């Protein structure tokens, strides 16, 4: 993975985080450094900040497309500008996140790209007795098909992608509804979704991996 970000604190944070996921990580804090690294190495994932000291991160995308074979890129930026978003995606980036973002969200998207890449669009995710078929939008617990709503489906994938991590209710809400601010501090809707998902899994015989972390959020874990 290549992380191109000029804010060192953020760069270090991302480095630490993704290292735990067994990524081999290279970092660059300027366009120039990034170009050098891109010439020498092949990356699976590139996290790109737009506002770099020596230019725009978007300028790197054509270079990446040129140099890199099979890559995925996510643009990170403080700007909430639609123009940048469109330009970035047009140029060929896979995804786009505005700061501040939830690390779980970034993680989930990185995982999605990896899934797409590594598994050649193999769309099956397995977590113990739960198997999720992304293509067919089908979830099975021990071969019994669960009847999940769209939101519950998204929720399950998000939880599995970020397993063993405490996920704040805000980050989950933002993932499901692309904004948590509409709810102010009333997350009852989210609680309802969680409750339903839990019930459906356990009703089909699955263990309850969906642990509640009091006051904060949830954790999908088998520990």
């Amino acid at each position, binding site marked *: 993975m290549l992380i191109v970000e000029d*804010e060192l*604190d*953020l760069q270090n*944070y991302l480095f630490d*985080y993704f290292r735990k996921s067994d990524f081999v990580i290279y970092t660059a804090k300027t366009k120039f450094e990034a170009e050098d690294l891109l010439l020498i190495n092949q990356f699976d994932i590139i996290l790109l900040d737009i*506002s770099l000291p020596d230019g725009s991160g978007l300028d790197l995308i054509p270079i990446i497309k040129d140099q890199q074979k099979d890559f995925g890129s996510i643009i990170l930026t*403080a*700007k*909430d500008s*639609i123009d940048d978003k469109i330009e970035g995606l047009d140029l060929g980036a896979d995804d786009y996140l*505005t*700061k*501040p*973002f*939830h*690390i*779980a969200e970034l993680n989930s998207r990185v995982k999605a790209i990896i899934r797409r890449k590594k598994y050649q669009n193999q769309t099956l995710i397995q977590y113990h007795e739960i198997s999720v078929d992304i293509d067919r939008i089908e979830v099975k617990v021990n071969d019994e098909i669960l009847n999940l709503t769209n939101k519950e489906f998204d929720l399950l994938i998000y939880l599995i992608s970020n397993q063993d*991590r*405490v996920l*704040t209710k*805000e*980050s989950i809400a933002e993932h499901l*509804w692309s904004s*948590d*601010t*509409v*709810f*102010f*501090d*009333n997350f*009852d*809707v989210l609680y*309802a*979704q969680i409750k339903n998902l839990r019930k459906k899994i356990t009703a089909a015989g699955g263990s309850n991996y969906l642990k509640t*972390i*009091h*006051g*904060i*959020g949830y954790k999908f874990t088998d520990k």
Partner: protein
Amino acid sequence: MKKLIQQSNKQFLILITILLSACYLFIFSGLNYYINHESDEKLENDEFRIVQEIKKNRKVSSIYPIAEIEELIGSNHKIYKSLKSEYLFDEYDQEMEPYRVLRSIQKINGNFYKITVRQSTIEQKDLLITLGVAISGLFVLLILILFFINNKLSHKLWKPFYHNLSELEKFDLQNNSKLNLIESNITEFEQLNRSLKSFSTKLVNDYQNLKEFTENASHEIQTPLSIIQLNAEELLQESDEEKSQKAYAIYKSAKRLSSLNHKLLLLSKLDNQQKGIVKEVNFNHIIEEQINLLLGLIELKNIEVILNLKEKFIHPIDVEIVEILISNLLSNAINHNKNNGFIQIESTNKEIKFSNSTKENVSINTDKIFNRFNKFNSDSVGLGLSIVLKIINLYNLSIDVSKKDGEIQFIIFK
């Protein structure tokens, strides 16, 4: 208010009229005086001759109206002489005609005589009238010509000025338009042009700087906030409950700051009259979209949503701004609603009505409702409705808020 040309013409006319009238009076009275004076000289002459004849004891006959001589009886007659203008009825022309009359009573050779000599001034008077008419005609012609020329000249002179005026009207700070001013060889206009150009350039520059500053400041804030939030989220992973609760508190505050930052940035953009991409937008469509998004919350509180979108409400505006507008109004309607309440949205092509039931035992101050940071509970940021108001003002809409028993209503209209 009147156009400059009209004003100057009006004043010109008034001035000319006064001047000419004064001229007239002057000329007329002058000529009149001259005529009378001439007559008087002649009359004096005639009288003198008559007196001389009488002195020589020759009889002088009266010829009315030219000369009348009357011998007076008695001896207490006052000697006097008077000169007057009078009108006499003329038999020949059958009308009243002007005369100059000299009357005198004199003592000649021991007797009193009353002598009256008259001279017709009709010719002179007629001349005067003809002259008057001729001059009047001339003057009127002169005025008309001057008027006409003046107008034409004025138009020509002022044309560049009017062009520059319309350029000024077209000037839009937002669109970074340039002023295309016509040059003029008139000093004052050139000065005006130069001032306008430098003024507008400075204005555009300052505006750009302000925009950039606001946006940069806001973006600068986002990254550190990001770092706080991310690290706080990391600390949350701690199994120590007390520590993770503290981390969560930091995380929530960072999120709130970020949201506040975004909203303030939006407000300042609206303040700077940045209109975004303006197109004709169908509000009904956005209303339905937003309701869908918030369906979860609506169902949770068991709120009944009544949509009565009779006609399309379309208005030139930026689509994203409409989404913010509707989303804010809807969120408000949901959050300040009671359980099992209702939200009703009606639209015609002239207005949209948002009404909803309100929580019991909560009083709403409709006067202050749009003020910044006017919060109903301590969790909301309180900017939502002030954003709504700014949007309304920026895009030439209007909004009205009223409350009834347990119900509040917002009407957006053009």
